[in-house]
């Protein structure tokens, strides 16, 4: 039996869609009114990222890159939300959220070094406000509450954005992060990218709730579910969440309904073991690039020539970044030892000497 309370909670979480799969505006009042340049820029980023994703997958297969979690399908969810961030807003990404880091200012070469397992990949430039990709599922959620509390205490007009998956909402850290953010009323935006699977486990098995957005209710913060394949809906939700955060109206949980077309990571995952081709094709029909391309073309803002140019730029950038990555010296154990403390304790000083000797042989 469904209680009235449950009914009212679920009724509050209808999916926000602004641009439908045919590239038509279906919710005029919610249209975020991006300028023509902004619309083009967002499309450019999505096209660029899709090319980069394809290259990264093939470079991984050739052994030229290491760890990589594919992103195709999630471009709107990732990039239209990051598009609402200001330069000095903090980003707390997961292992899959490398594109947001780059569009937030991280040089591409860093992401390749990270992928190869080189500590230079984690050395974030001073003017880029991001943490390293988080491997531990949902650990970034509690940290986001901390970053946002710091921003609030400093009186800065900035916001902390964090990204994680659908599976991540099962972790205690997820609930703790939302709850802390709500309790301290801090400027934080939590983005759960619901791509329907946590490796092989479907989201239906993670939780009995019908939406992930409604998990905000227990923390007393705002929650919203959006069509994560719709760049305008994702942007509108993120923009609104940011404004509310800045105005002291509290944190928001955004659930984006999306899909990853590829495997979980490039380390041996086989999606055919746990999802059907029908499901894949159903989601491919909702593709964010396809509908945004139609929308922009109808406005006279996009053409094949522009798209080709973006593709070329992406390919060139990747080539350059790879070359740069190849030139970074290999890591030595002595480098790793030097990364451990401000002042090396006795044991590590001794080991530093030992390894320096070995390395100079």
């Amino acid at each position, binding site marked *: 039996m469904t209680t009235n309370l449950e009914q009212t909670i679920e009724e509050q979480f209808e999916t926000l869609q602004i641009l439908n799969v045919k590239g038509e505006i279906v919710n005029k009042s919610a249209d975020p009114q991006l300028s023509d340049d902004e619309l083009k820029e967002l499309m450019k980023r999505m096209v660029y990222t899709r090319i980069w994703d394809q290259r990264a997958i093939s470079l991984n297969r050739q052994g030229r890159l*290491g*760890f990589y979690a594919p992103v195709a399908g999630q471009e709107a969810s990732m990039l239209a939300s990051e598009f609402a961030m200001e330069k000095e807003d903090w980003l707390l990404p997961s*292992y899959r959220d490398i594109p947001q880091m780059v569009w937030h200012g991280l040089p591409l070469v860093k992401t390749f070094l990270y992928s*190869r*397992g*080189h*500590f230079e*990949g984690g050395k974030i430039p001073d003017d880029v406000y991001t943490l390293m990709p988080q*491997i*531990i*599922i949902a650990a970034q959620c509690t940290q986001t509450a901390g970053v946002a509390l710091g921003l609030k205490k400093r009186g800065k007009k900035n916001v902390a954005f964090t990204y994680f998956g659908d*599976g*991540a909402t*099962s*972790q*205690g850290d997820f609930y703790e992060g939302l709850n802390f953010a709500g309790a301290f009323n801090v400027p934080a935006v939590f983005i759960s990218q619901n791509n329907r699977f*946590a*490796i*092989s*486990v479907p989201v239906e*098995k*993670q*939780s009995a709730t019908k939406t992930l957005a409604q998990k905000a209710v227990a923390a007393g913060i705002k929650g919203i579910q959006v069509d994560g394949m719709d760049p305008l809906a994702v942007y509108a939700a993120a923009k609104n969440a940011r404004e509310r955060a800045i105005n002291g109206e509290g944190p928001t949980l955004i659930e984006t309904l999306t899909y990853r077309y590829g495997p979980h990571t490039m*380390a*041996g*995952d086989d999606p055919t*073991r*746990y999802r059907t081709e029908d499901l894949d094709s159903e989601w491919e029909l909702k593709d964010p690039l396809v509908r945004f391309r139609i929308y922009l073309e109808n406005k006279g803002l996009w053409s094949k020539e522009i798209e080709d140019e973006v593709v070329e730029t992406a390919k060139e950038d990747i080539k350059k970044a790879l070359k740069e990555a190849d030139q970074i010296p*290999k*890591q*030595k*154990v002595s*480098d*790793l*030892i030097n*990364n*451990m403390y401000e002042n090396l304790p006795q*044991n*590590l000083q001794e*080991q530093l000497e030992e*390894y320096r000797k070995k390395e100079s042989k």
Partner: protein
Amino acid sequence: MAQMTMIQAITDALRTELKRDENVLVFGEDVGKNGGVFRATEGLFDEFGEERVFDTPLAESGIGGLALGLTMENYRPVMEIQFFGFVFEAMDSVAAQMARLRYRSGGKYNAPVTIRSPFGGGVKTPELHADSLEGLFYQTPGVKVVIPSTPYDAKGLLIASIRDNDPVIFLEHMKLYRSFRGEVPEEAYTIELGKANVVREGKDLTIITYGAMVKTSLKAAELLAKENIDVEVIDLRTVNPIDVDTIVQSIEKTNHAVVVQEAQKQAGVASAVIAEINDRAILSLEAPVGRVTAPDTVFPFAAAENVWLPNEKDVVEKVKATLNY
């Protein structure tokens, strides 16, 4: 006898115990339909059904608590932590709850839980997948820690772990999963927990080691044999508790010892082994006990693994230094 990889031997042990005892339940992240990210539970979901082999929501502390709770209804949980670096998420449920259940209840309750988990370097995983964290659980009275080094040992030790009435952490070195095959009997058999195995006999020096470093040490022993140095190699098999009798017996014969572990110097169980030797066999020693370990950094970024992990050259050098002390 069948030739199996270690991962096949593990699946075989799980199947054996699922068949034998209907109270055995296998669960964790992706262990159901997907058969585990390493395919350790391949086929078990189809064979035994979702009632016995199932996926959980993504939360290690939840998995640990679920396991403890199920023991109250006399189930025998075999839970998986997908990679052992994620055990920090389950630290309370394992170290603060399961490990103390028997003690806190005056022996009324116990937690016959087996925690399976892959770990170990050399396969270029991302952060927190490969760390050798067995030392944390050596320092946790109330649990046992088992680390097999061959397919044969993996099956016998896993069956023994599942049948054990106390919590057992069963650590599977990823590098050993598929790197070689070995003979594995088809029938069920157990290898006693807490007993070491002398994998190579020798008279000059005793190497005490475990996990992937058993192979490394055996390779070193081959190299040393060419120089007429005759090394005995002990595979601990269980690192909590440590089989001190086998170690002491060997040292009384060889009068020299080197401990080899993949973990950092300040981690692992090398320092515990040395302390036991100090207590029990110091007068048999002709030189201080040598140690081969990784340096005291965080587990290295993937591209630096090969220079960070101890190798057979390190072992050879340390053996010689100990003999020439």
